[in-house]
């Protein structure tokens, strides 16, 4: 079933358009920076961007910081929101279930394919950003955010953990969207539901009055991977981020399963 879902993912033009757009935004930013030579001043603008002009090796991290707050979650929410509700709206859900494909199995396959998409998207963004960064800005040993230099080998695992962290954060989004997708038969409503939850979280995160709940918001630690580029690495926020997402993932996947497994399929 996983292979079938994978085939559906890769035969769908939408998948590749989304990934191309995701990789396109950082590329556009890089070209603009290169042409104008005007970078954000240090400490302003998206993370890392001020240093990118001097060193392209930092661009993958900068690119992830660019797409992570808005673009990537939207793509993931649309994909995961479409997973069950999309099948319902094309009328294919009932035919899959009577084929028969077990409901739990279907849900797991959908989730697995979403994970594949998230990793694919994050990796493509990182790889394209590295290529573009190296080409436009050249690669030097990384200066860490704290000032010291990071060795190339060191930079590799830091980037790898960054990719994993971003993917894990997106899995949280996917879990919420998947749950929404089992509730409604409209893929649009499911994606919007998940996005509404994220926007709410981001708004609360900016609000001082919500200080008490901030550490538990799903989006609060999204950009904590910046800490991975400090020496020594500041693990506190990153590990908190992993843990918070794990709770959201478990709760919403559980809810999605409980809802879908007992639902009357009337689509």
């Amino acid at each position, binding site marked *: 079933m996983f292979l079938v879902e994978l085939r559906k993912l890769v035969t769908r033009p939408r998948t590749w358009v989304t990934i191309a757009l995701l990789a396109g935004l950082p590329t556009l930013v890089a070209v603009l920076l290169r042409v104008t030579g005007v970078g954000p001043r240090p400490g302003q603008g998206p993370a890392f961007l001020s240093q990118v002009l001097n060193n392209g090796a930092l661009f993958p991290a900068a690119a992830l910081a660019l797409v992570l707050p808005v673009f990537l979650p939207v793509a993931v929410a649309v994909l995961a929101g479409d997973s069950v509700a999309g099948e319902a709206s094309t009328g294919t859900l*009932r035919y899959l279930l009577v084929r028969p494909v*077990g409901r739990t199995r279907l849900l797991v396959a959908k989730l697995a394919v979403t994970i594949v998409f998230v990793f694919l998207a994050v990796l493509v963004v990182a790889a394209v950003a590295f290529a573009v960064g190296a080409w436009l800005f050249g690669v030097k040993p990384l200066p860490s955010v704290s000032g010291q230099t990071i060795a190339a080998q060191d930079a590799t695992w830091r980037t790898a953990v960054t990719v994993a962290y971003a993917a894990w954060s997106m899995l949280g989004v996917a879990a919420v969207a998947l749950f929404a997708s089992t509730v409604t038969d409209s893929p649009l409503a499911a994606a919007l539901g998940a996005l509404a939850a994220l926007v709410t979280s981001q708004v609360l995160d900016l609000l001082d009055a919500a200080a008490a709940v901030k550490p538990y918001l799903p989006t609060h630690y999204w950009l904590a991977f910046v800490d991975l580029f400090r020496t020594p690495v500041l693990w506190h926020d990153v590990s908190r981020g992993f843990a918070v997402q794990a709770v959201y993932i478990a709760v919403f996947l559980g809810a999605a399963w409980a809802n879908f497994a007992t639902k009357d399929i009337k689509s």
Partner: protein
Amino acid sequence: MIRTEGLTKRFGGLVAVDGLDLEVHEGDLFGFLGPNGSGKTTTVRMLLGLVFATSGGIEVLGRPMPRAAREVLPQVGSLVEGPGFYPHLSGRANLALFDAAGPPGPAPNPPSPHPARPVPGPPEGERSRPRSWARTAVHSPRQRRRRIDDVLARVGLEGVGRRPVRAYSTGMRQRLGLAAALLRTPRLLVLDEPTNGLDPHGMREVRDLLVELAGNGTTVFLSSHLLAEIELVCTRAAIVDRGRLVAQDRVEALLGPTGRVLVTTPDIAVAADLAAALPGVRLGERRPDRLAVHLDGTAPEALNRRLVDGGVRVRELVVERPTLEDVFLRLTRGPGAAPRPDRPAGPPRQGRDPDVPG
């Protein structure tokens, strides 16, 4: 093949299906009739494990549903409320996806060989019995491809090529839906409005296909509101109204004589006098050349003899039989209609099937 006992489904306060007892035997071409909103589709969905019953039991192929869905459903082909496909893929790619999505293996209980029954219609040549229609487990990639070819040819979609389903007409989608239902050579076909969107030729082809399948031992459960369709092909039928079973019997029995005989003759006055003299006979509607006679126990042939002996020139004597439409309209109420006062109260009409013991 299908048996339900007291099957009930409530959606909130609405009782969609109310204590339904269905019985479909192996080899039946079973018609499932009812007005819109009478619970037909909900019942079909419950049979397939898509909707969970509020109470009551379902057995399909002798196994409880939805508990035994994994064993039962691989042997069931279905079309529920119109076909569903991925619009950006070709028909062939769609069938391949559905084929690959489910369990690859053979049905766990291979069906016993069915007694060969005569297939109505012109004898089919050997060419129309492709090898893969034998009930064998075939799932190598080549066999899968061939099976898809066969099933597409069978519904008249050979040569649609690589066009995406998006570009199909309604009729073509309906055919593709049937192809998907037939793909695994099911023992039981559950079809909900299979001729929707087809032109008269297409309807005829589908009807012939169903009769042929039934002739080969496939049991067909056909839910429809096209009464003519059911009347033409089905051997047994059930009629539901507002979620309740109002009749279940062989189609012939449902269409039993009304007890009226229509006599056409130029000698209408003599005929009326002679008929009225028979015991228990009431005269009905009378036209210049036709007379309706209600026979109460009198055999139509006795009436005929009396008329002929009396010198009446009988041009035509017809034992009136209701159409399925008459039966349907008598037994059911349209949605929102007031209850019919003339509707006989009492238990639903249950058939005494000659070939079923008990």
